């Protein structure tokens, strides 16, 4: 085991745990930034400087796009399991990935990359399957693609410069896609509005762990009427970002769209 690569893999997995478990969207975006910055570095040998710069630039652009799409939003539904459980699941995935390096044959890349890939797949599964808001689903999709790339890095020879460039394009594309979807969802009322129109139309279920206070979704009505400093405000938007307008009376439940399946 290469300790440096193991450390980079651990940081990447930690970022993924943060991204899937945090309710503050800024923490989620920070987690995605760590994942996207760390995953290309789990390689032996390391990519050349130009490739690293390209990946960093793509990552910064993608995360910036995501941040623009989420501007003003403060919370997502987060993980219902809590970060300790997510971290344990990720650790189990990493152990399995490390132990099965090569998947039956000799892997040409570092085992740490495959370990990170397996951990990210484990972390992506729950948001992809049960995600009830835009950010959760998008984080799952992003982690899944990063996981596949990490597994490829663990199985195959180091990627060429061209492959790094194409990976950078993929990073920008998924960042832009997440930004567009988040913007559309916010325009429609909030990140969780994608539940409307979905099959089943189930009401959102409150998280089981670390239940947020009831006013977590309600921003202060006015800048001059901020809550006193000693009052717990778990999620607060930065001053320079515009706050969401207070929600009016709850809208009527969205009509279920016509079923498209034959």
């Amino acid at each position, binding site marked *: 085991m290469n300790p440096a690569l193991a450390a980079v893999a651990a940081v990447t997995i930690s970022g993924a745990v943060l991204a899937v478990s945090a309710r503050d969207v800024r923490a989620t975006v920070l987690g995605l930034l760590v994942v996207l910055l760390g995953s290309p570095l789990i390689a032996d040998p390391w990519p050349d400087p130009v490739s690293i710069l390209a990946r960093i630039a793509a990552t910064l652009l993608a995360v910036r796009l995501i941040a623009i799409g989420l501007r003003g939003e403060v919370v997502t539904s987060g993980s219902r399991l809590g970060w300790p459980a997510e971290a344990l699941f990720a650790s189990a995935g990493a152990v399995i990935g490390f132990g099965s390096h090569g998947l*039956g044959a000799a892997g040409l890349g570092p085992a740490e990359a495959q370990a990170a890939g397996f951990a990210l797949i484990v972390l992506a599964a729950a948001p992809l399957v049960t995600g009830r808001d835009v950010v959760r689903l998008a984080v799952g999709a992003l982690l899944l693609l990063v996981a596949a790339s990490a597994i490829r890095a663990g199985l195959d020879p180091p990627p060429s410069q061209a492959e*790094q460039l194409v990976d950078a394009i993929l990073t920008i594309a998924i960042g832009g896609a997440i930004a567009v*979807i988040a913007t*559309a969802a916010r*325009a429609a009322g909030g990140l969780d509005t994608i539940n409307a129109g979905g099959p089943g139309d189930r009401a959102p279920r409150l998280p089981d762990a670390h239940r947020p206070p009831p006013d977590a979704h309600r921003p202060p009505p006015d800048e001059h009427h901020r809550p006193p400093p000693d009052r717990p405000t778990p999620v607060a938007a930065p001053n320079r970002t515009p706050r969401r307008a207070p929600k009016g009376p709850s809208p009527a439940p969205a009509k279920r769209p016509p079923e498209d399946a034959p």
Partner: protein
Amino acid sequence: MTVLPFLIVAAVAGTASLLVRAHRGWSTTFAVAGLGLMIASAASIGPSAGIRIGGAILAPSDWLRLYAVLGSIVGLLLVAVDGSAVHEPDVPGIVVLGLGAAVLALALPDPGIAVVAATAGGLAGILVAAPVGAAARAAFVGVRELRALAIAGALAIAATAWLARPLGDLSAVPAVFGLAYLAFAIAVAIRFGAIPFHLWAARVADAAPGVALPLLMAWGPAAFAAVALVWIDQSVAPLALPLGNERSLTAAIGAVSVVLGIVAALIQDDLEHVVGYTITADAGFVVLGLAAFDTAVWEPSRTWILVFVVGRSAFAAWAVAIHGGFGSRRLPELAGWARRAPVLGLALVVIAAVAIGWPGLIAWQARTALAHLALPGALAVVVAAAPLASAAIYARILWIGLRARGSAVRNGRGERPGWPSPWPRRPMVGLGRTERLLERSAHAFGGLLDILWTLPAAARLNRMPLASIAVLALAGLAFTVGSGGLGVPEAARAVPLIGELGPVAQPTPSSTPSSTPSGSIGPETTPAITFEPIGPSPSLSPSPSPSG
């Protein structure tokens, strides 16, 4: 010329079009200019002009050149129809970027990199599937599309990564190749929205602009499928492993998509849903092509991909023109459309003729070959003949169009051309010969200026006829491709020739053990070629590599 200029033009024009998306006219102008340049650069791609960039090869071929040329022409006509009919935002830029990503994926001989490029191109389409400012429905559709694309991309990346290295003893384990093959085949089915993976695609057909449907559901996934075809032919098929169950499952997905897609299209009232399900049905034949481990499948698959994408693009453009002209996509509200839009009626007849086909037509031959290569006898006959049932889809639309006009059609634009202002009268007052000559010249110049100044208003007034002409041109292009014109069979048989770049691609005289001459369409056999991934050469196959 290499494929690089095409990619640069696509990247620059598409990005510029999206950067000025707030100004719709400029956005469309950048995209149209880019598509024009892309046609020129695609036509000048040399089949042997490979280029090595950053350790990877961009290897063109005749088929890639035809795909790029057809894609650019179709994209230009789609933008024209869009501008004439509904003028949806962001569509022109996304068409340009999506085409660029698809061509990049097709030019990369290493499937591991190509699937990443194809996935990135698919993600760009989300911009039009989830338009900013739309209702929750758009976000719902967009995030489901994102999930489908991510799952398909991850499956394909993992599958290609697993087999792209020396496998040692693992190469004797059929389950490994079966799993990898199944993962990639399912990824292709997901990208196409093949049944039973069609729910996200149906929602996209509902929410996305109609003019973007060909890119989202046909051109992009077709590039993904072409990469899968190369990968299967390169990494799985040559080993002649017993993968009966996996192939049967893939063939079942393809056959079910063909049959149920036609049934679903028949019962839909929304034109974009009809277009979406006919795409699903036609994509079923592409999925069938993945189930046939035979070099003979190479030519009909690539022929059918071109026929399918151009034909469905024409049908989608027809639906957009109808929507723009009469303000409705629902068939019950479009009674009498053919009476007010006879050019669109003619275009629909041409589109239907290509979609249904007849024995001897290159499209029919390709479809039949794919069904017989992937399915057992009786089932192959049923699936190959299933598109005949799509005649009912087009007959229903035409029958509705020939009924008495409904209110939507009466209030719609119609195809009758018009001129926004009366022609000015210029009486002659000159007496002498020279005087009258000069006066006539002045009148001619003034009349020309009158026409030029009125052209924008005339274009706005004649949006429906202009859209109809563009749709008719697309239908004609679809008929040309479907009947084997533009060198489609030859391009489908062609393989990349990049020998001057060294050992990356090596034409080999012999074919795979299971290969047979691809004589189902043309008399010539398919030459074989080896694509080897960048890096250490894999030792998967004890035999020469398959045709690529």
